């Protein structure tokens, strides 16, 4: 209904040529989808974005090739979780790649995208033109955050899809043995991989919100990116100190490696729920901070 009414108004506006009043009614129906599509197209027309995705895709490829060319039967028990299962089942390349990527590579790329959201526009000077257009500050902030979240999905998917692809190419694929000892078939294991993708994506949303907030504080995108990435490292370091046990459940990186719970039978959903709640908390807090900062800020860049 809103769409058809919008189309109608656009048509009226074109016919009458009365922009001031005709398009004013369109505004009430428009949700800003065009700006979001444009946001994604700007993001994916940057070479930097593709370089980061290529680097993420290289992780599973490196793992798979390394396991394939070295003695493929040796099971040392060292190295990242799930590494030893790769030779029996190629799908574990994707899982191992996530284990390797989530402490650094994924937060790095997410930090770059989230840190760039507002500060990047400010440094190009395009922030003032977006606001004068007028994009509306709240709307721009939301579009920017949703864009960063879309990148989280994309980055995780790149690791998983490349991992599955190279795993299928280099290793046998059969029933997957879960952590609980049960065995599931191929299609069931793809479903589990998608669940893991969702889990990891959700895990990165809190960090994205922090990046968005830091990005509203500065006109220097590199500073915002670096600060976001540093925070992700600090959070993990704090998470590794047993003395700070009380703090651990509050760290946004607390559940980052808990996606293994999705490889049990039945699935242990508790960590999924707890993680989602924790990330929502971070989104609420840092979203509010970003809102408070960005709404009152003088755009002088």
């Amino acid at each position, binding site marked *: 209904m809103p769409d058809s009414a919008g189309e109608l108004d656009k048509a009226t506006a074109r016919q009458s040529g009365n922009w001031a009043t005709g398009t004013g009614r369109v505004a009430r129906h428009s949700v800003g989808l065009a700006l979001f599509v444009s946001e994604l197209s700007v993001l994916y027309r940057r070479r930097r974005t593709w370089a980061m995705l290529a680097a993420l895709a290289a992780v599973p490829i490196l793992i798979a090739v390394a396991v394939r060319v070295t003695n493929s039967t040796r099971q040392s028990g060292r190295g990242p979780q799930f590494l030893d299962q790769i030779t029996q089942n190629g799908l574990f390349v994707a899982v191992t790649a996530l284990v390797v990527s989530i402490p650094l590579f994924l937060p790095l790329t997410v930090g770059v995208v989230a840190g760039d959201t507002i500060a990047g526009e400010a440094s190009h000077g395009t922030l003032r*033109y977006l606001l004068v257009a007028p994009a509306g500050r709240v709307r721009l902030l939301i579009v920017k955050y949703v864009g960063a979240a879309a990148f989280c999905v994309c980055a995780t998917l790149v690791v998983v899809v490349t991992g599955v692809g190279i795993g299928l190419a280099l290793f046998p694929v059969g029933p997957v043995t879960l952590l609980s000892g049960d065995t599931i078939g191929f299609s069931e294991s793809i479903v589990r991989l998608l669940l893991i993708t969702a889990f990891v994506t959700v895990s990165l949303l809190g960090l994205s919100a922090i990046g968005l907030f830091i990005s509203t504080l500065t006109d220097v995108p590199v500073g915002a990116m670096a600060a976001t990435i540093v925070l992700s490292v600090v959070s993990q370091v704090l998470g590794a100190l047993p003395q700070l046990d009380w703090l651990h459940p509050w760290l946004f990186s607390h559940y980052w490696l808990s996606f293994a719970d999705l490889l049990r039978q039945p699935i242990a959903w508790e960590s999924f729920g707890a993680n989602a709640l924790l990330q929502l908390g971070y989104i609420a807090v840092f979203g509010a901070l970003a809102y408070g900062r960005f709404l009152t800020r003088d755009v002088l860049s």
Partner: protein
Amino acid sequence: MSAEPPGPWPGDVTRSAGDLAIETRGLTKRFGHQAAVDQIDLAVPRGSVFGFLGPNGSGKTTTIRMLLGLASASSGQIRVLGSEMPSEFHDVLPRVGALVEGPAFYPFLSGAANLHRLDTADRQAPSATRDARVAESLERVGLAHAAGKRVGAYSLGMKQRLGIANAILRPRELLMLDEPTNGLDPQGTREVRSLIRSLSGDGTTVFVSSHLLAEIEQICTHAAVMSTGRLVAQGTIDQLRSRGETRVRVRTPDLPSARVVLGSLGLSVDEVARERGEQIRSGEDEFVTAAVGVLDVRAEDIVAALVAGGVRVRGFVVDEGSLEDQFVALTGEGFDVAG
């Protein structure tokens, strides 16, 4: 402000708000203790081409940022196109095209893609006509040939044109152009002037800031002058010009009698002729200049008196004073000196 009665706009009794495209009352912006913009009352009539003049650093851009809602005012009120800014920005800004402190674009996108991007930010801009409007806008500023080229490879002048193209993506009621001729060659400057003329001819109010008076003097109907954060003059170009002194300049071989006649009419004759880009002496002729001052003497009467006094008048010029002189007097410095 608080003492004013609640109403649409204090002081509206004398004039309906519809007359003015931009109106500010006591607009002030302080950075720390320093007032970058100090209590300015701008009044930009609808349909005018309004020159906003002042040296670099006099507060022009800060004022424009406040008018567009980019920066908040420390105190004072702003009304643009009849609505309060910044509270009613979604109503005002779609009707305003702006070029603020130079053009700014994504260097990795083409000119057309940049315009496309900025147009999506305006939720009132109809997507159905977007491509056509982008193409038309690029055509209008002479960038159609470079539409697909990355902006990173544009020259400063091309970026400036693209900035103007962005401002006119949709028909606007008001254009705010901050230093629109920066980085343009003389030909580009002429093109911008003629573009402004044609937009103004369509009924658009154009608010154009510059530190180079000569560039906009010829197209403006109104002007305001800023100096160190204050508005030191405002009015029509003729009003501003008439603040200057009218002088007459006589070319004659009979210098002494010319001086006597001019003096007897009450004009204050200069000891040495004021030079205006010409030499003081031309062949056997010499020049004498005199200020008319507040006298109500008509030029033809001065000439008649000179001829009657036996002065061989070989040239007679009435010089109403240049705007430039006015502005230098008002701002206390040349126009390209940082204030």
